[in-house]
């Protein structure tokens, strides 16, 4: 066999051929790789051409943005006037106008804490977490319901719109997380009674629809307690949501607990730590960090589920839009109303999920 020597003649790297480079190469690869792919691409482009321009025309070009009633709107375009005219109600419900600053204060608190937690550059995450979990719920409730420090009381039946959606989601989340953690620990406990009890609780609530839980909280809860105790409707809904959501949260947390190797607990024991010490200081911090994506998903589900309180007569964002649609002045604005409410819900849910995906990647 001959041996060839190419020592000094290394071939330098070249650019790829034109048809597999840049925009052209990308299109050839991703849109027109084979005849059938090309057909799919062209069909889709034609479909988009049929849908998008008229949609743009309706939603933006021919749309009416302000006005006092449906009759002020262009018949061929979207009537966004319905949304702009009712925007305050959609956000604050029937909260007295002079007190609306309190709701805004609640929103500001929420944004500040979330911003603090979510922007990596700001230090002091532990403090923020503590404030968010312990202080924010108390101050928010005091500010919103009033009755103290000279603030006039605003009963919860006047609350409504986006504010109720956020209140339900926030308090539902804050309460279901610790309850869920306890249930998860209980389900993995070595004590059979506790294990059985927790398992039964989790499986019961996971096995039934939220709507029946809400019915139960709204109709049966008042029956369960002495007549003198009257639960606020919002609180009843919250109890239902927490009972339901904590079961799902428990399963998420349990997944995290299962992923922590046994050696961690054994190491704690060998250091002389007790059950609660080893759980709180070592196991749970690791387990919860592992299941952040699961917790976020549960939160998104909870956020969407708050819309179900409509069936027990509370006014969250969706039900207040639904109610406004029955206003004779605005009959026929269903599409605009639902698109607006859908967009707000979508913005929150999509934003949260995108943020958590970014968190996961890092």
């Amino acid at each position, binding site marked *: 066999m001959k*041996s060839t*020597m*190419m020592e000094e003649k290394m071939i330098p790297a*070249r*650019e*790829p051929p034109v048809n597999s480079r840049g925009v052209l190469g990308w299109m050839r690869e991703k849109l027109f790789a*084979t005849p059938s792919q090309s057909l799919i691409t062209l069909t889709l482009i034609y479909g988009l051409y049929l849908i998008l321009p008229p949609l743009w025309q309706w939603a933006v070009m021919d749309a009416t943005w302000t006005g006092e009633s449906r009759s002020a709107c262009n018949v061929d375009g979207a009537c966004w006037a319905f949304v702009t005219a009712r925007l305050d109600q959609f956000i604050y419900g029937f909260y007295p106008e002079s007190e609306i600053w309190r709701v805004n204060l609640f929103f500001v608190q929420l944004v500040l804490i979330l911003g603090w937690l979510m922007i990596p550059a700001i230090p002091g995450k532990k403090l923020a977490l503590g404030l968010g979990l312990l202080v924010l719920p108390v101050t928010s409730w005091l500010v919103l319901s009033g009755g103290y420090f000279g603030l006039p009381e605003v009963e919860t039946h006047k609350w409504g719109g986006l504010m109720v959606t956020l209140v339900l989601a926030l308090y539902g989340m804050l309460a279901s997380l610790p309850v869920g953690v306890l249930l998860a620990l209980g389900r993995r406990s070595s004590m059979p009674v506790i294990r059985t009890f927790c398992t039964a609780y989790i499986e019961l609530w996971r096995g039934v629809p939220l709507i029946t839980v809400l019915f139960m909280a709204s109709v049966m809860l008042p029956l369960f307690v002495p007549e003198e105790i009257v639960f606020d409707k919002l609180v009843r809904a919250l109890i239902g949501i927490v009972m339901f959501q904590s079961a799902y949260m428990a399963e998420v947390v349990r997944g995290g607990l299962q992923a922590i190797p046994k050696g961690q607990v054994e190491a704690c024991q060998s250091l002389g730590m007790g059950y609660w010490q080893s759980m709180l200081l070592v196991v749970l911090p690791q387990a919860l960090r592992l299941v952040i994506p699961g917790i976020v998903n549960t939160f998104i589900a909870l956020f969407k589920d708050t819309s179900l309180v409509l069936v027990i007569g509370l006014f969250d964002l969706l039900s207040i839009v639904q109610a406004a649609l029955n206003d004779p002045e605005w009959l026929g604005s269903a599409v605009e109303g639902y698109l607006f409410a859908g967009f707000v819900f979508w913005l929150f849910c999509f934003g949260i999920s995108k943020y958590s995906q970014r968190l996961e990647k890092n």
Partner: protein
Amino acid sequence: MDKMVREVKDPASPVIRLNGVNKWYDNFHVLRDINLDVVRGEKIVICGPSGSGKSTLIRCINALEEHQEGQIIVDGTELTRDLKNIEKVRREVGMVFQQFNLFPHLTVLENCTLAPLWVRKTAKKAAEKTAMEYLERVRIPDQADKYPGQLSGGQQQRVAIARSLCMNPEIMLFDEPTSALDPEMIKEVLDVMIELANEGMTMLCVTHEMGFAKTVADRMIFMDQGQIVEEATPEVFFNNPKSERSRAFLGQILNH
């Protein structure tokens, strides 16, 4: 049986011909002007540092990777985007992967009969008979009804070799077949490969097993930066390498 018919073909003509092959991953020029002829029955060992394009090269030969420039002709069939040609070539070319890639949902026997049944349309009984023959040759007939997950790495790789052989291929490609194995299992796989080489199979192996290379290779190919830097017989390559790069590479790998 089938083999007898194929022997009639001209033994001197190249069974694989690569002519000015270039390939890019996006803008990364991974194969640069590769020219290579392989004759029937030849055993070629390809080595080189990681990222030199040696795996990509043999993956182009059964069109697992697409090349952008040049010609690849396997057993008279040129590889283009035409799926028919690609399937025709793949029927004649067996491949063994670093990660075995056995099908975990099928038993060892089913792994071996899958392609004969569906590609060659062999009758089930005949396919199973052939499969058992090859499983005996790789010395694990007793594992036929187990699932891949129940076997050791070395056993899995031997099943993978048997699976390829069941298609009666003209050519076998080996992509670092022993790199994912524990040291004590490497020998059992290499023994099977040496046996195969002795039977006259055309083989292209990407491997760092230099002992194996010395035993079976007709030709060594050393690649770096996507090109063939040196081609030589094993004696020349190991004792008197021409290029500075191969010398450095050998120094690293032999002292290791």
